[in-house]
């Protein structure tokens, strides 16, 4: 499920995260993204508030198995009213839309994250999240 890996050198990581925007569907992105680089994207963008361990919730819910999971479906996590009302399935496309600009999908959500505009970084992140099962 979670592959051990070493960290990318800082300059390489910065390069990877600043690549030009790519145009592709999120589902395609999952296939074309690099999960190892995506792990670094996760560590940089998500890991303060989210765990990848099953059942481990922080300020945000565990992201283990998030791809394909129903929204607001972790029983012991206190979601915002907005997230509970979303009633969707976290497909790759939906996650891609959400992390691009969270407030655009859940305006009253409590996640304090402005979004990840870099499509390549999102593709790598989605590829990594898809391995969490």
């Amino acid at each position: 499920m979670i592959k051990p890996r070493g960290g990318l050198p800082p300059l390489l990581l910065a390069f990877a995260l600043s690549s030009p925007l790519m145009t592709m569907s999120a589902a395609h992105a999952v296939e074309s993204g690099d999960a190892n680089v995506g792990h670094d994207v996760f560590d940089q963008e998500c890991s303060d508030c989210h765990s990848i361990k099953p059942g481990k919730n922080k300020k945000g819910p565990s992201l283990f198995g998030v791809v394909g999971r129903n929204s607001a479906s972790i029983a012991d996590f206190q979601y915002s009213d907005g997230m509970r009302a979303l009633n969707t399935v976290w497909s790759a496309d939906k996650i891609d839309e959400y992390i691009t600009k969270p407030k655009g999908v859940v305006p009253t959500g409590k996640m304090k994250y402005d979004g990840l505009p870099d499509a390549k970084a999102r593709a790598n992140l989605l590829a990594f999240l898809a391995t969490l099962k």
Partner: protein
Amino acid sequence: MYLRSGKNFSSYIRSTLIVLVFSATGMSEALALPSFARQTGEACDACHVGAYGPQLTAHGMKFKLGGYTESDGKDGHIPLAAMLIENYTHTAKDQDPPPEDLSKNNNLALQELSGFVAGKLYDGFGAFAQVTYSDIDKATALDNTELRYATETTLLGQEGTFGVTVNNNPAMQDPFNTLPAWRFPYTSSDLAPGPEAGPLLDDMIAGTVMGVTAYAQLNNGVYAELGNYSSLSNNFLGTVNVDPGPEVNGLAPYWRVAYFKDKRAYSYSVGVVGMSAELRDRNASGAGDKFADYGIDGHYQFLGNRMNIFSVNGSYLHEARTVADEKSNLDQLNIAGSYYYDKSYGGTVRYFSTADDSSAKLDTTGLMLQADWSPFGKESSWQAPLANLRLGLQYTEYNKLNGVSSNASDANTLMAFAWASL
């Protein structure tokens, strides 16, 4: 700790300290609180560089500005924590006289044993309150303490976090680890000689005052804070076992403006700060000695994927002072650069200097090196977040100490420390 009533404050200033910046009984420098980790469900490394306090990541800075109240949403978190610092101090030359009840050199000491109420008290309200026992002083006293209220809202068309803090140490409320209250070194020996001169903002009235400031961290990056400090009463300070020190005549205004950006891969801030006060003996009346501080500060922190973290934190403080009718200036520069690998193995280099153009001429320049290891503090750590430990080795070298160059190296200090919290 501070001046007892009945002495003349000006002569006190001249003769012994101007400020005992690193006094054996000053406010403690250390902070690392597992109660915050239990409250948020996050590991220490989310908020602290090197997975141990008090150097904050941008995430930790925002947690502090949010009033210590963010949580995992669950009830029942108990906002209590404890901390211990044991250290071994060796100076290049024996100290004569030695520290009270201790040897002239090579002393092992329980420097701090602290209890905390730290975390969310109610919606929007949080606390950081510390009580510390020092086995060096054989005393327990109130240490750094603040209460905060913060809320996220829109005010005058600006979105951001708005709050109020009540605290007993000017700039302890600041989140950027650049100002004296929380800048590197985060722990240092109370049993070694050190600089005797420092500005008002560097512990001069810490613990003896209460300040109320209002602040705003706007989403566009602007941070602004304004408030006033005044002296706590002798009765209250006696109750909490803090020597009263000089009295602030009237109010001491504090102000702060900064620009702070969290880009997740890195963060930075640049700012200015100011504080002024008129200090006099508590039994005196009329005008006292005047201190006016102005400073610039900044930090840059590269976090990336958190495997290789680089930080630079610095401040330059200028003080104009009038002490016993003598006008003088004091300038203090501090800059520290650190690198941490895998949120565990760290090294820090600090340059510090104080230029004092008063007749006392208590100039100091030196360099400090520290290597430390924090084996726990990560999500995968053993007994996380209960078990927390930092082991470190710190070396301080003086080129000039309190105006003297010829034998400044006698005070060069090697300190080994074990710092635990739960």
